């Protein structure tokens, strides 16, 4: 065997095959190898292959700390990544914004990009005036601030719009945001870098749309909503591809929580200690609104029922949140064996007190 190479160069296809198996950190470093490699790592061909190889069992977990109730200050916002076999929590650095805005919540996460909202806390400010919408890739650490939608003036000034984010299909090139504010619906597309009013076909004009507990599945966004305080809850969906809303009714007779989940790749919802999942009824072929059937998937044996609740799903385990004393803890729970598993490590901040959102995440090279 020779030790010096004297053969031909590998073709670009093969280089892409090899690169698609490298971690993002290595790929960012190798952007320096040559101008061609720089383009390769920012090209949607490699980005898509790399994305499809990535571990899709990761989640991002938000938590709050340093809230001082006496002075009514907003809590600080922290974020961790939950992943791997051991369900370890790894703290992630949020982007540093130049003004004094603080992040408040995650509006969406898809194909490796995370959409966050940050606000400068000033009393008596209209929401959109003080908010910033940021698109962030946690693993390439790139982020940018998006242009903001213009909201109609004639509504209560402190109302919050509902924002949604996602990719309309598997292609990682073009993402969209949707902004719902009373009757007004607007969509932002990355390719145009601007907002436009849309018809909002199928939108039922709900007064309460619980924007924090969204889920996103196969290019469709879901929120739980009510048309009015007195009316029952339903699920509102928005298809990012055709920009159409649908209302998904929930079975009557149960008390449904506003938190939506994903269970075994289906939309799911919680009723006290039960998790129910949605399935399309294939026997009904009429129209564009396939009938959805809800079935109970499992019940949970809470050990301290008044202090525990379903927080989210991670892989095929349930995360149970327990409110005790000064802060929340999370436990893993296996719905089949009904065994209580690992207690998640508490976030590092000194005055941590509670968890916010759990969202699906995957590492990718997607461009902001």
């Amino acid at each position, binding site marked *: 065997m020779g*030790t010096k*190479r004297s*053969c031909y160069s590998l073709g670009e296809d*093969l280089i892409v095959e090899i690169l698609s*198996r490298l971690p993002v950190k*290595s790929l*960012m470093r190798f952007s320096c*190898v040559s*101008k061609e490699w720089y383009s390769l790592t920012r090209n949607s061909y490699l980005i898509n292959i790399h994305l499809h190889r990535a571990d899709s069992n990761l989640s991002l977990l938000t938590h709050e700390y340093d809230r001082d109730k006496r002075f009514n200050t907003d809590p600080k916002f922290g974020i961790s990544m939950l992943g791997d076999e051991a369900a370890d929590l790894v703290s992630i650095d949020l982007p540093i914004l130049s003004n004094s805005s603080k992040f408040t919540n995650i509006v969406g996460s898809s194909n490796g990009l995370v959409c966050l909202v940050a606000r400068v806390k000033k009393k008596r400010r209209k929401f959109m005036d003080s908010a910033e919408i940021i698109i962030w890739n946690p693993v390439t650490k790139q982020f940018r601030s998006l242009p903001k939608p213009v909201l109609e003036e004639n509504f209560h000034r402190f109302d919050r719009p509902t924002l949604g984010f996602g990719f309309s299909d598997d292609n990682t090139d073009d993402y969209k945001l949707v902004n719902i504010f009373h009757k007004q619906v607007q969509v932002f597309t990355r390719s145009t870098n601007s907002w436009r009013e849309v018809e909002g076909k199928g939108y039922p004009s709900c007064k309460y749309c619980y924007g924090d507990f969204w889920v996103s599945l196969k290019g469709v966004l879901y929120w739980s909503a009510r048309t009015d305080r007195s009316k029952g809850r339903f699920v509102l969906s928005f298809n990012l591809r055709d920009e159409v809303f649908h209302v998904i009714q929930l079975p009557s007779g149960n008390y449904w929580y506003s938190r939506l989940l994903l269970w075994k790749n289906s939309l799911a919802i919680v009723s006290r200690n039960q998790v129910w999942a949605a399935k399309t009824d294939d026997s009904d072929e009429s129209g564009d609104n396939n009938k959805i059937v809800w079935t109970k998937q499992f019940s949970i044996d809470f050990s301290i029922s008044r202090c525990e609740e379903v927080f989210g799903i991670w892989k095929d385990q349930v995360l149970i949140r327990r409110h005790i004393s000064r802060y929340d803890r999370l436990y893993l729970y296996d719905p089949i064996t009904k065994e209580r598993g690992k207690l998640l490590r508490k976030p590092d901040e000194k005055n941590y007190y509670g968890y916010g959102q759990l969202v699906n995440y995957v590492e990718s090279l997607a461009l902001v």
Partner: protein
Amino acid sequence: MKKISVRTSDGQEFELEENLAMESATIKTSLDAFSRDDIILLPNVNSWEMVKIIEFFTKVQELETKFGVKFMEKKEGRFLEAFQAEFDKDLSDDNLYCLLWTVDYLGIEVLLENLCHLMAERTKNKTVESCRNLFGVQHDYTPEEEAEIREDYSWAFEGPEIEE
């Protein structure tokens, strides 16, 4: 089992089992065009590479039986780890590179995936210079341009895992 004869660039002849030979799209095309009794000439393949390929192929078959994985299925982590453990120590970076080229030339899909995985593992912790050498890539950035990237992604250049 029928044997197919091939001759490598340095004149050495090998007798391959038919099922191995047929895994090479290049050899298969030759066989379809010519008589199976002829020796197939492989002027782009060295004898050491052919020896390695035969070794690899045998090992992949063994591991597939052991892990119950079929050809063309997505290879699980344990399978890839076992493959890597077997072959990693014997091959220098340059030899692995050449072997990868040859397996690609011969069109042996089933080995290509394993070798790409091996190559990725070798590459991932390299420095930029080391990576350029391995892939034979021309350095075409000006010092200023390179410095800018290094600054923008400074976190990607730091870490105990990066080889010197």
